[in-house]
């Protein structure tokens, strides 16, 4: 079988998603039977230019030169995949979008603000290029990358999980943290795939996988408010890892305007 030529790209990120590729452990030896990493700077000195069959893109677009690189990546890759929260939604680097960029520059580079090139807001890669598939998660789930690679080889659609973390909690027979302990768990609006990791480890989900398909943030915000959370706390809950995703953005705007009207 002909191997797929794969390029790994890094933008504004922690490199945790590409690390997950190495974290296949023994399975990496099998993966290497299927793919040829033609560009993977974290792992190899032997990198070669495109075209590539598959581009795995990690990171948010946060600087002007990255805009050019992601456009070139789109040209070079037959299939382009946003891997992880940063590439999908801007993720944690998009937290800077709450702040005026001048003040951020002054905080970190006082007196040298003009020497640093940065964009006013951090965004997912689809703000600049067409994306073929999205793998949510901070970090991405290893199983979902594998599923994607398999699906591409077999010429079928990847079977990714659009449902909420709650489904996985039920399958694990976890006791519901919202119902039993009145905890402010983001599970009801968060995309599954982690195996309900946080609730299984005794803490409320904090939405590192971003929104599920068609979530209802309003209902959950009302639950949080009834639990006694302040408006600031509720906004924080929905702005950690996927603040730029439309359902959350809209949900927050509506909630804040509803609360201020009262």
């Amino acid at each position, binding site marked *: 079988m002909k191997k797929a030529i794969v390029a790994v790209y*890094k933008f504004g990120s922690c490199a945790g998603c590409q690390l997950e590729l190495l974290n296949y452990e023994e399975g990496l030896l099998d993966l290497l039977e299927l793919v040829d990493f033609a560009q993977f700077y974290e792992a190899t000195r032997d990198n070669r230019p495109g075209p590539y069959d598959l581009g795995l893109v990690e990171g948010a677009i946060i600087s002007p030169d990255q805009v050019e690189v992601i456009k070139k990546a789109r040209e070079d890759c037959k299939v382009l995949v946003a891997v992880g929260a940063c590439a999908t939604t801007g993720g944690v680097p998009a937290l800077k979008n709450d702040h005026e960029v001048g003040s951020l520059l002054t905080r970190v580079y006082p007196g040298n603000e003009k020497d640093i090139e940065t964009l006013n807001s951090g965004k997912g890669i689809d703000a600049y290029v067409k994306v073929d598939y999205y793998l949510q998660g901070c970090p991405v789930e290893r199983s979902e990358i594998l599923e994607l690679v398999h699906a591409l080889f077999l010429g079928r659609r990847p079977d990714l999980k659009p449902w909420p973390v709650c489904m996985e909690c039920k399958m694990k027979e976890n006791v519901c943290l919202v119902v039993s302990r009145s905890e402010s768990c983001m599970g009801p609006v968060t995309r599954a795939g982690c195996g309900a990791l946080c609730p299984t480890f005794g803490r409320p989900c904090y939405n590192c996988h971003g929104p599920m398909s068609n979530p209802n943030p309003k209902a959950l915000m009302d639950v949080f408010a009834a639990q006694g959370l302040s408006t600031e706390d509720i906004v924080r809950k929905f702005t950690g890892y996927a603040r730029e995703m439309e359902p959350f953005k809209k949900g927050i705007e509506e909630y804040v305007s509803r609360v201020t009207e009262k």
Partner: protein
Amino acid sequence: MSVESQKNKASGALREINVGYIARVEGEGAIRINSEGGKISRLEVNVWEPPRFFEGFLVGRKYDEVPDLSGRICGICSTSHQLTSIYALEDAMGIHESAQTRTLRKLMALGSFIMNLAVHIYVLEAPDYFRKGSVFGLIPEHLEVVKKAIRIKRVGNELASLIGGRPTHPVSLVVGGFSSLPSTQALRDFLPKIQEIKQDALDTLRIIAGIKRPDFESLCEHVALSDPPQYAINMGNLVSTRGMNIPPEKHDDVFRSKFVPHSNALHYYVEGRDSFMVGALPRVNLNYAHLSADARKTAEESGLKFPAFNPFYGMAARAVELVSMVDEAVEILGTLKVREEKPEVKTCAGKGYAVTEAPRGALYHAYQVDEKGVVEFADIVTPTAHHVYNLEKDLWKFVPTTEDLPLDDATLFCEMLVRAYDPCFSCSVH
């Protein structure tokens, strides 16, 4: 002297070492070196990784989300950022960890270190010494060595998952302790796994000790945490080979930073002195006596001698640490009796500081929080920020020793010096 270099010298040939995207390190950086007849006219470690502004956007976030967010500075050492963040926030709010929490946090750090050390040695640094571009290139001729590397790395990750849920951005570490505790039985059940990699760790130490390193010495100041009789990871004072001995809260009194136009990572130096090195080599140099007996014995039998001031010796230091940390994990897994404890947090206003040893060296977090535990000020200095200036100064000394080599080899050796520092450029800029 080679014919080529004689020609170079005679003609005062221009030479350019330009690696725009250094491979097999964390994050994005370049080296740009121009010389003429062996005399350097420009030398830059160009850290072009763009800033994400953690210190800016952490302001306004709450204590219960800050460790998870600051962990996102770095995927491979997220555990270290989480722990340092937690310690600094606990310091700010006057929270003291229980003895059990201290031990479990150490065990979590050991899992992360074991994975990190294996990745650094086998994936990032060693392939150069086998003249391979990557660990993938080692598979055809050295499959058994690669399998050894994977086993060590996997068990480190599994240990981190046992305590923290997952190795990258673990979930159970919270201010006040753990959201969920492993059972005593689960710790005992893990023992055979970690015991199984002891031999792999010893083999690693012997393999790495036997590798011929470039002959180069840099007598710079070495800085590491110290917490005798422990081999310091999560707490202690910062000590150095020039007599430094300070608690975490004095970090800013002793270390200063400056901006240079070619690096998005700030350059740190010791006030009144100079640049310095952190990481595995300074740790082993300054805390050698506190390594496990087996680690020291095997190091000595393999001909390793510490203190060492050749930065290329860092890979050997990592291998020595690997053995010692496997031993330490075995000790905790075999003896700790876990009892039920719940994190208790009462928020209050305050400022707190912490320094830990991340796999790549001393890591500093400081936070000021208000009475609700919301961050008002954050300051983070990572291992690579601490010593990227020293790396650049080492390159100034090292490059002239490579002038007799063909350009490709000289370039490779310069990259090897960079990788010997095990930089994380993502961390350094954050």
